[in-house]
Structures are given as structure tokens and as C-alpha cells.
């Protein structure tokens, strides 16, 4: 990965930012939540691995499990 990449995901009441970046030989993802009272600049979750695609997929899976696109009700 040449430079960091930012994914913005909108969910009900919260904006999730997933930042993917290279750290030495590892690819890392840091997940942040904004809105709904969560304003701290500490990531709510991190993922690391050797492949950008795998790290992104794992981060997305984590987000979808906790912040699903369509909340029933």
C-alpha cells in the first residue's frame, strides 16, 4: 500500500471511519466512531495482518457485526 486509505461508513447515528495504512511490514486498520456521544480519538478497534485486502475485509466484518446497515425495527 503506497499511502493510507480512509473508508467512511454511515450507520444510524454514527459515522465510522476505517483507516488502513502500512506500518513496517504489516498492514493495519484502525476503526473510529463519531457521533452518538463517541467522540474520542482512540480507535474502537484495530486489525493487523500482512495483506491489505484481508485486513480491510476483517475490519468490514467487525463493523458489520456491531453496526449493521439495516437495523430491524
Amino acid at each position, binding site marked *: 500500500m503506497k499511502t*493510507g486509505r*480512509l473508508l467512511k461508513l454511515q450507520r444510524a447515528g454514527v*459515522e465510522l*471511519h476505517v*483507516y488502513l*495504512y*502500512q*506500518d513496517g511490514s504489516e498492514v*493495519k486498520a*484502525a476503526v*473510529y466512531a*463519531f*457521533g452518538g456521544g463517541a*467522540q474520542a*480519538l482512540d*480507535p474502537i478497534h484495530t486489525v493487523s495482518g500482512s495483506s491489505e485486502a484481508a485486513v480491510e475485509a476483517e475490519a468490514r466484518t467487525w463493523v458489520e457485526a456491531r453496526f449493521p446497515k439495516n437495523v430491524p425495527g
Partner: protein
Amino acid sequence: MGSVLAASLGAACGGSPSSPNPIPSESPGTPVGALVFYDENGNGVLDPLESLRLPGVIVQVSTRTGQTASGGHAIVANVPAGAQVASVRPESLPPYFVPGPQVPVQVPAAAEVPVPVTLPIGLNRPNVYMAFGDSITFGEGSNDGSGYRSYLEADLRSYWGGDASVRNEGQSATRSNTGAQRIGRSLDRTRPAYTLILYGTNDWNDIECRDDRFPCYTIDSLRSMIQEVRSIQSHPILGTIIPVNPIFLDKQPTERNDWVKRMNDQIRALAKQEGVAVADVYATFMSQPALPPLYTDFLHPDEQGYSLMAQAFLRGITQPLSATSTARRRSFFFSFGDR
């Protein structure tokens, strides 16, 4: 309409000479309606095409004062009857505006009194604003590519009417020393009444701007731009530079934002030395609950960020230089930001 206004003002304040119960104490006087307008051609008269009105300005008639609201209207209460003059308090005017000639008023006035103010711009074009800077001024990352400029146009039109035009002279990847070299050509092309300078973000990429040579060429370049703007009688508005998105952990965001903060201290000091109005974009960003939702990437704002930038420039353009707090006219700014 003027006589209707005078009659209604008189009725509302009990100042009518025909009032059945006149108050016998000190002369209460009568209210005078005033309209503060931008007298573009400086002839002292409100001409049909002069559509800018100035909110927040203190109008004085005799010894009494009132402040203009949205639309430039003010009511000065309890003005003694007889021959008076209307004027504006210079310290209440937006930067670079100057009072026009005093206006004779016979009180009670039959109509709202137009009070002129002028903006010395030489041969430049009224209501034209030149946005000058790097890719942030260019609008990189915004949905339609217009960045803060279209938000500012809308904000200016809402604030004081007229037909503001914010022209793009942003050039991506440029640093302040390049800006100082190219501003003359941009001014020649645009002939703006105002020049909105926003430079410094990319200077970080020069090592000399980060080591003990800080602030390197940045402040000298900005000073040079200010002087060039003034040499053609355009009016500079100097922007502070925005912080970077702090979640880009591999790009030294903490170190860089410390540098941005220190550079902005220098930029504000420069503005004070030169008597230039500041658009404190940095302070506007830092007042938000969180920075990341204002960005589309590491450097460039998203729509929310560009809208905030426009609000900061609007304050820089319209708030008197003597004001030290953004709170003074805060109520005028709440409704802006929709493109």
C-alpha cells in the same frame, strides 16, 4: 412605505406629536429608521443597483444610537426633534469599510434614512472575491469541486444581499512561496474587491519549514502577498491553515498539528502587524466536537469541513477588526451553510 414606517414607529414608541397623553418629562424624542447600505459608486445616494446592506452596524442620530439588524435596518430610538445628522460608528463597520458622508435628517423623519458606507477598491470589481491558495482553496475532495467557495457565495448573499462572486485561484500542490510569485497574475486576471489568502499547508513538506528555520519562508511569503494585494487596492483576508486529519496515524498527525498550531500563531501575529482581517479557519475546525468527520482524506475537507471554512471566511470579511471574539455577531451566522 417610508411614511408608513414613520407612523408605525411613532405609534409603537408613543412619540407621536398628536399623542393624547404626552409624557411631560425630558423630551423622549421620536424613533428614526435607518438603512445602512454599501454605496458602491460613492455618490452618497442609494441607487437602484446598490443592493448590499450591512447588519451589525451602529447608527448614530444626534446622540442616540441603534444597531442594524439583518437587511441593514436599524431603529434609533428617542431622537430629539429638529435638524439632526445620521452617521455610522466606524468601529462597528466590517473591515476596510469607511463611513460615507453624514446624512442630514429632519426629525421626526418621514421615511427610513439611507446611510451610506463605502469600500475603497480602486479599479477593482465590487462583490468579487478571489480565493487564493492551494488544493484546499481549489476545492479538492468536495462533491462538485467548488470547495468552500460556493458555500461562501451563498453565505455572503444571505448575510448582506447582493450578488457575491467567489473566484477560484487555487492551485493544487503549491506552497506559499509559489503563491507569492503567482499572485500578481491572479490579481490582474480577477481584479477582486477582496482577496482570500489561504497558504501554508504544503510548506510542511519542506524540511526547512520544520527544523530550526521555522517559520521558513511562509510568513515572508504571506506578507508579500498582503502587500501585493494592497498595492492594487484589493482587501486581504488572511486565513489560518487547517489541521490535518488526526487519524492518519502513519503521517505524523500529532507532530504536524503542533506545527500547524505554531504556524497559525505566526499568521495571526502577521495579520495584527499588518492590520489585516483574519479568517480563523483553524479555530473554527478546532471548535468542532471531532475533527475526522470534517475530512475526505488526510488534508482536504469534506462538505461539512468546506462549509465551516466558508463560515470562517464570512466572519473574517464581515466582523469588525476591533472585535476580538467571534461571539459578537454569532447570531448572524447560525443559519448559513446550505449550498
